[in-house]
């Protein structure tokens, strides 16, 4: 039996974990806020995309032109109207807990709204290519997973170029490294936070659409990914975008390859074991820098 399919499948799932984690790490790295509504926002992207697909039958990947901007606006507004007032009120506190509670509460609201409107059912977008399989030699690869891997890696590269090479990307990094000094350069940190939040949610749109053709959608779908994303973010190094991708792929690979040799519960243990070993050897994570 060839390992090739599980490597591709694992890398694909892992890259999606990585993409989701990148959104989380982008918000943390820029705002020092942990967004507990990240999974719920992924769920929102998936459910809205599923609903549009169910009505129109449009190729889910094309839906990015609708879901991407919508999620960006959702993220932007979440910072501007929900988080900003709380951040301002807590600006002189050393450990602001209010924002964490706010995002956790927001996640409950989103999940319950989804339950009311969408129902608790698990549904999957059976697209024309959902069951397509490519055969290479004696191994076969699922089409949506292969496409997912390519799209996810491409978007990660785009994010990297945006952060490293563009004016707004540089502003985002500067704000993350020292928001008070960034203000002395004329940078409006609250607006930069909103852009970071918007991009984070747009990444969730990509992740959601890539998952759509092969993953079940339900109001509770965010939970699994949020837990994975937290592990990946810490594993890769808080605030590190390349770390999130590498961390995600490592987790994805362990998950699928190990699944061939052991039961699922043992696989989870294995993931946490790797996680602990990495943190033991390098407490700041694989690509982590010291935060002050």
């Amino acid at each position, binding site marked *: 039996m060839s390992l090739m399919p599980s490597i591709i499948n694992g890398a694909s799932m892992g890259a999606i974990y990585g993409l989701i984690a990148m959104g989380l790490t982008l918000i943390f790295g820029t705002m020092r806020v942990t967004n507990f509504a990240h999974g719920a926002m992924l769920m929102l992207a998936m459910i809205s995309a599923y609903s549009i697909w169910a009505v129109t039958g449009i190729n889910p990947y094309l839906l990015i032109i609708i879901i991407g901007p919508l999620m960006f606006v959702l993220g932007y507004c979440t910072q501007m109207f929900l988080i900003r007032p709380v951040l301002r009120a807590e600006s002189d506190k050393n450990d602001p807990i209010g924002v964490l509670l706010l995002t956790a509460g927001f996640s409950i609201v989103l999940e319950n709204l989804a339950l009311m409107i969408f129902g608790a059912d698990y549904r999957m977008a059976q697209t024309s290519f959902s069951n397509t399989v490519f055969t290479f030699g004696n191994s076969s690869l699922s089409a949506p997973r292969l496409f997912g891997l390519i799209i996810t890696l491409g978007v990660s590269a785009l994010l990297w170029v945006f952060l490293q090479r563009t004016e707004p990307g540089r502003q985002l*990094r*500067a704000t993350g*490294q*020292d928001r008070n000094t960034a203000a002395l*350069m*004329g940078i409006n940190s609250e607006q930069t936070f909103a852009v970071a939040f918007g991009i984070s949610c747009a990444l969730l749109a990509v992740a959601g659409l890539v998952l759509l053709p092969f993953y079940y959608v339900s109001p509770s779908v965010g939970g699994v990914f949020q837990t994975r994303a937290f592990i990946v973010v810490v594993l890769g190094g808080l605030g590190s975008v390349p770390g999130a991708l590498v961390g995600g792929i490592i987790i994805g690979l362990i998950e699928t390859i190990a699944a061939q040799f052991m039961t699922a519960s043992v696989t989870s243990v294995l993931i946490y074991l790797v996680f602990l070993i990495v943190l033991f050897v390098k407490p700041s994570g694989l690509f982590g820098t010291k935060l002050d």
Partner: protein
Amino acid sequence: MSNHLLEIKGVHSGYGDVKVLHDINLYVEEGEILSVVGANGAGKTTLMRTISGQLPVTAGEILLHGTPVQHLPAHKIAAEGIIQVPEGRRLFPYMTVHENLLIGSTMKHVRADRQKNLEYIYNLLPRLKERETQMANTLSGGEQQMLAIGRALMENPKILMLDEPSLGLSPLLVGTVFDLIKTISAAGTTVLLVEQNVKQALKISQRTYVLENGVVAMEGPSSELIDDPYVKKAFLGL
């Protein structure tokens, strides 16, 4: 209507319940080097941060060309051309020297001058050009101070406020930094210099304010203060 570049009238400020500055009156004239000196904890940094909009003014006003600016947030104060080089440099540690300079020209109205300013700064501080691609957190203290000043110059300051630029530098480098300040001033930039190195500050500036426990204790032409018996005893160790 005042004709001072910057005027601080009866300003009170501090950190929440901790009141630090009391009824500060101070003005900066176009083109001059003004220094503010004082011992540890006198309130010099608090004054800088208050002018920059990083701390709220609880009473009084701050006028730029006669227009009140004390209600503006920090990023808008910078947009007005009131530029601070903060105490301890505060570079963006995980960015290169070049990127730190680029960040200085983030604002739209200074973006057009980016290339011109870069050339000017690299020419003025060739050491930075050599280290262009090096991370800011790997620079020596002196290089970091040069970069912090260069980054501020990228913002086309109307008034450049330097908070203890000589802090932690060797006597030789202190001289270099003060020479740099003279050059910047000679090129036409107004400078507000905060220093604990009182001797050098008095030498380089035209006028000086002495802060003590959050109030202005003395003010006057630097050439007079340098001979003042109290200043000599308290700050110059004579």
